[in-house]
């Protein structure tokens, strides 16, 4: 198996600078990388994935020059034109915000915080300026899930920290937008979100790229404090030639509530690994995803619902459609630890196959070490139900319209479950646009 290309060197990681503790972690990760191998589909974790097609040698991590700006208000004029366009269309869908963070090609381009969010104590800053957290960069994403996580640890050039202090209530969502326009850049967006005791917040984290080849491996760490509530929506809107390998990992403390959602339409190959670990009694982690793959796209989801404390609840609903020659992979694991009596865990994956040539696989798994639990998983993979189609047609609905109604209806439940509904609705339009052309 191939190793990591030369450009991903210890020297490159060292040059990124930042606070001492962050530098040390970057170096340790970069050193570990030198002996690491790229994954292959023969490993269970990467089964069915086209990860072997990633030509990592054509990409290199961000260089430290020019240095990250200090943040501050967005200056659209300073962005490359392509980035400005991508941001513009997304910005309209985001609506009113508590804060906006923009990174472009691995550099911090803007941090804006509204006056009301500032009054609530919301802090948005480069991670390197924060005191040293326990564990790898943000404290939660440790150990890295795979070699791409290790790369992110080593080469995240503009890691950001979003802190919602205890008791704060943010009226509007916070948006973090990562734009990739450089075709040769390996982008490693990094975000840590910390929601304090009893605080409430909504966060949208987007990764977007243009039509060129691109490679992005974002890592997001989420820490939901006791009795805190966080809605977190991940928007994957990569371009058609891009490869995205995302990891989102969260911990939820006692009585905390996390709703994390993934909305994915882009990428030639887009993988999303999502971990939600319930560490405190009575914590809840809801996970949802809505995705639509067409053309030759491969959309790949791996989920982990980890119950480590008693009376914890997790409810997962991943719903996707594939058309043309697209492929989709779902594998999910519910893990219930010995201490987690009274766990209630649900996992549902539904895939609609919209052509004969698509391929979809759905693999649910359970690993339970306590008897006093309720766990259920369900998965379905199949084409449009002929009876549904006939029923609509028998009322006079033309076949193309009937199919569109059925596909939109298929997404109905998950659409309502996605977090940050004000933004998720805009994503819905993107899915409609994909459903539309042939119908």
């Amino acid at each position, binding site marked *: 198996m191939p190793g990591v290309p030369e450009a991903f060197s210890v020297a490159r990681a060292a040059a990124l600078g930042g606070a001492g503790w962050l530098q040390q972690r970057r170096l340790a990760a970069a050193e570990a990388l030198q002996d690491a191998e790229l994954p292959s589909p023969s490993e269970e974790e990467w089964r069915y994935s086209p990860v072997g097609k990633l030509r990592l040698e054509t990409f290199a991590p961000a260089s430290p020059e020019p240095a990250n700006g200090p943040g501050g208000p967005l200056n659209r004029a300073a962005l490359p034109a392509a980035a400005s366009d991508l941001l513009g269309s997304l910005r309209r869908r985001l609506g009113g915000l508590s804060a906006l963070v923009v990174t472009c090609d691995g550099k911090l381009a803007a941090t804006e915080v509204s006056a009301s969010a500032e009054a609530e104590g919301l802090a948005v800053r480069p991670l390197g300026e924060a005191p040293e957290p326990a564990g790898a960069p943000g404290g939660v994403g440790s150990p890295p899930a795979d070699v791409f996580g290790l790369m992110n640890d080593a080469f995240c050039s503009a890691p950001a920290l979003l802190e919602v202090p205890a008791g704060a209530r943010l009226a509007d969502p916070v948006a973090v937008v990562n734009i990739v326009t450089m075709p040769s850049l390996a982008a490693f967006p990094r975000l840590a979100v910390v929601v304090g005791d009893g605080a409430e917040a909504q966060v949208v984290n987007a990764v977007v790229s243009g039509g060129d080849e691109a490679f992005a491996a974002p890592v997001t760490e989420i820490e939901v404090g006791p009795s805190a509530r966080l809605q977190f929506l991940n928007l994957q809107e990569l371009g058609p030639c891009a490869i995205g390998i995302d990891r989102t990992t969260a911990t939820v403390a006692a009585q905390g509530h996390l709703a994390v959602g993934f909305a994915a339409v882009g990428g030639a190959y887009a993988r999303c690994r999502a971990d939600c670990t319930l560490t405190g009694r009575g914590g809840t982690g809801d996970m949802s995803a809505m995705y639509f793959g067409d053309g030759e796209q491969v959309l790949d989801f791996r989920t982990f619902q980890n119950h480590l404390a008693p009376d914890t609840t997790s409810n997962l609903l991943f719903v996707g459609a594939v058309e043309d020659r697209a492929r989709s992979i779902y594998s999910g694991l519910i893990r219930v630890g010995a201490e987690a009596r009274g766990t209630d865990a649900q996992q549902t994956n539904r895939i609609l196959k919209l052509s004969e040539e698509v391929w979809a696989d759905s693999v649910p798994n359970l690993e339970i070490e306590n008897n006093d639990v309720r766990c259920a998983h369900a998965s379905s993979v199949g084409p449009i139900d002929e009876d549904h189609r*006939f*029923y609509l047609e*028998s*009322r*006079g*609905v033309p*076949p193309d319209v009937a199919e569109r*109604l*059925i596909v*939109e209806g298929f997404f109905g439940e998950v659409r309502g479950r996605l977090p940050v509904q004000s933004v998720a609705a805009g994503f819905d339009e993107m899915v409609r646009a994909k459903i539309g052309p042939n119908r």
Partner: protein
Amino acid sequence: MSELIVEGLVADAAGEAILHGVDVRVAPGEVHAVMGPNGCGKSTLAHVLAGRRGYGVTAGRALLDGRDLLALSPYERAQAGLFLAMQYPTEVPGVNLLELLEAALGPAGGVAAADGLGAVLRAEAERLGVAAALLDRAVNVDLSGGEKKKCEALQLAVLRPRVAVLDEIDSGLDVDALRAVARRIEEATTEGLGVLAITHYTRLLGVLQADRVHIMIRGRIVASGGPELADELERTGYERWDRPAPAEVAVKLGRSF
């Protein structure tokens, strides 16, 4: 005016011959009842007319206003004015009734504006005793058998077809609901709706006045008459008509010799 003409219809399902030459002629405003025991081919007749997949027509024809129904796809038949009220209405998750009706009527639908359609739907729902809460649900999902049947009648009322095939519309409906549905259908007939009501029991005909009654046995209409035929059926049951046709007798005799 709208007339449904079925002539010499021969059809099979999954390779098995079900209809052996069915003739029915429904003039505008007329109610025809097709009655028969289980398995006689009543529902097959409904499905063949609506164009459901899985049925083959090997002879005969079906015309609506002179148009060859059998040459049309299911939605074209519906747009030509045919409506099928299903015996077991399909649950369609994620698609609500208003959305369905809007799509069925199309941009040039009989009821112009979308707000207009919503108002028509609510008014018709009230007349049929369909709870307003059901209108926001996905079509037929989590509805009781009776509620589904009422929703079929509701769609009929809004879509205003020329000819309606009602497949066991009475099953699942309580007395009051059945009466409301029958009243609404009768009212539509005064505006020219032709009805082909398929039913197992004479119960429906107690509330929906039939002009003609046909008795179907083993894929054939063996008797046709006025409403009195239903009364006779009520007294004697289907057995009286359920005799093998002469040709079948010959075959059976031939085999036994």
